């Protein structure tokens, strides 16, 4: 693909600042996730985490199309969504380490980060667990006439859960402003999606009357263009939509999934990393189009690195919640 094919109508409406912001966010997410891996490897993080590395363009391209008071729901692989919606890395790391300064006071951990301030209804450790929630938030948006839109992120594994079809039906019947974003990274944990997914994915949404499309999830510009269009339509009252983003996770299913060759080859991984990296792609394009230069982007890279390092330090130094916290907030 050449640069010119990217120069769609939508592209033209995006300011340089926006592209730069998307670049910065993608880099931040990547640095963030590298640190998560590092924390795990150095046995500084309790439990596990599911890295978003490789999929950054999806969260960033989509959240860039949202207002800050729009809602998202997220998954077990949720750090990228949280950051893209505006969460700050320090409190996220604090959450991952179970510290009181974390977004959930350490009670949620990696798979449950939630933040009303950025419209994040929460990550969810149940595959498809947030679909009802997202659809319900869209119900509120419509009934309360807030003009908000909701994005429901989920992996292609969630296509196996019946509740998706139940809520797509509801959303379409009631014309709710929710976009179901399927992050198809080819694997349900350790099983290729072709072994678990019959028929045609987009048809599963159009059958319920949703408009559905598929996009190269490694290209933030295509993702953003599609998202902006669908979000806008939904905001105008056109009802729900379905967007499949074709993407890839570079790392294991979780940080402990090191030996992966029984389910996918190193070559396959290498191909995605070297040929379709979303950060590299945007970088190349920005430079090629003279929208910025390498030095500026390098500066962003190193700023991001510093920011993330500081955030980790903050979290490592932060205190655990006091024992008395344990039975607080069971009931509101």
């Amino acid at each position, binding site marked *: 693909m050449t640069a010119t094919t990217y120069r769609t109508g939508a592209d033209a409406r995006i300011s340089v600042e926006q592209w730069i912001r998307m670049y910065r966010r993608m880099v931040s997410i990547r640095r963030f996730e590298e640190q998560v891996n590092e924390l795990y490897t150095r046995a500084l993080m309790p439990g596990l985490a599911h890295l978003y590395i490789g999929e950054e363009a999806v969260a960033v391209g989509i959240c860039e199309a949202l207002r800050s008071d729009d809602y998202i729901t997220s998954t077990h692989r949720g750090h990228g969504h949280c950051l893209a919606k505006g969460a700050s890395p320090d409190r996220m790391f604090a959450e991952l380490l179970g510290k009181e300064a974390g977004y959930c006071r350490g009670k949620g951990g990696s798979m449950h980060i939630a933040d009303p301030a950025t419209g994040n209804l929460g990550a969810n450790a149940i595959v498809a667990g947030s679909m009802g929630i997202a659809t319900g938030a869209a119900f509120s948006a419509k009934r309360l006439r807030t003009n908000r839109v909701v994005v429901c992120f989920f992996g292609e594994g969630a296509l196996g859960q019946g509740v998706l079809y139940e809520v797509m039906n*509801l959303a379409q019947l009631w014309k709710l402003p929710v976009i179901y974003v399927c992050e198809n990274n080819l694997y349900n944990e350790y099983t290729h999606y072709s072994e678990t997914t019959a028929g045609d994915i987009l048809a599963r949404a159009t059958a319920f009357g949703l408009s559905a499309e598929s996009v190269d999830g490694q290209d933030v510009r295509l993702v953003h263009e599609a998202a902006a269009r669908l979000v806008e339509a939904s905001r105008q009252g056109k009802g729900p939509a379905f967007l499949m983003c074709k993407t890839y996770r570079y790392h294991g299913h979780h940080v402990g999934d090191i030996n992966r060759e029984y389910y996918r080859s190193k070559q396959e991984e290498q191909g995605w990393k070297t040929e379709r990296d979303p950060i590299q792609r945007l970088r190349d394009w920005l430079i090629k189009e003279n929208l910025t230069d390498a030095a500026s982007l390098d500066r962003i890279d190193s700023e991001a690195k510093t920011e993330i390092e500081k955030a980790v330090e903050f979290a490592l130094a932060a205190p655990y919640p006091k024992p008395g916290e344990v039975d607080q907030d069971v009931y509101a």
Partner: protein
Amino acid sequence: MPEAVRELTFAQAVREALAEEMRRDERVCILGEDVAEAGTPFKVLSGLVEEFGKERVLDTPISEAGFTGLAVGAAMTGIRPVVDIMFGDFITLTMDQMVNQAAKVHYMSGGKWKVPMVMRTTLGATRRSAAQHSQSLHAWFSHVPGLKVILPSTPYDAKGLLKTAIRDENPCVFFEDKMMYKLRGPVPEEEYTIPLGKADVKRAGRDITIVATSSMVQVALGAATLLEESGISAEVIDPRTTWPLDEKTLIESAKKTSRAIVVDEGYVRYGVTAEIAAVISAGAFYNLDAPVKRIGAMHVPIPFSPPLEDLTVPTENVVFEAARELCAHA
């Protein structure tokens, strides 16, 4: 309660609670199968769609998981949904939404998000509806931190407790015994609510404590009348909510009477009677003159055949005999 109050049926009391809360707070919505024009198969909701419109009384597809999940998200974002699950047996389909989502959102988010929703559903057998339409599964939700579980036994309680549940900031499950919908009882015209977690002494007595839930309160009261004729004074206590549970009232009563029976229409094993019996056995340990007796549904899927079905649920007579036997103990 003032004297000479109006009488309503249990169904009317539920409906009135909903109507009043919907008038008071326009964020309250009802979601469920056949809740609008049909007003549910039990006609509990008749008239509500006419007053509040289809935007607030919504017929859903037959998607218990889907619309319960939708209610969780709606509750988090400013709506106060009341979800109607037609038969308590269908809560099986909503367990993930209620237990992994609704019950945990507040805690997992460090107290940031709240889920002020109510699930209304049924319990109770003897309607000749067989094994998939007769269960009393409230013990499951009672087991789960984050949920509140409410079991009204009279029209008065139904109205007052439901209003409180709708105003509560937490997910509440409200179980109505489908065989009680036509039960009449006094319900004052004036506004009132009933706190969750406060047991009610439905009848005071000296010789034995009968703790009963939902329609079993009526059974217990019937047994208490029979017992009175045998010279036994029974105290009937209705916990009203299994969670929060008003342990103190139960224990104090058992301490006073020194004997206790627990009657609940769910299965005995690993059910509500187990918890309450364990609480009383421990709390009134030094005062009890006899083991706490548990009475509930027979441990079988509910059979259709009427003579068999009738054997599976507690009756006045069973409670009466059990109480007499207990009172024969030193």
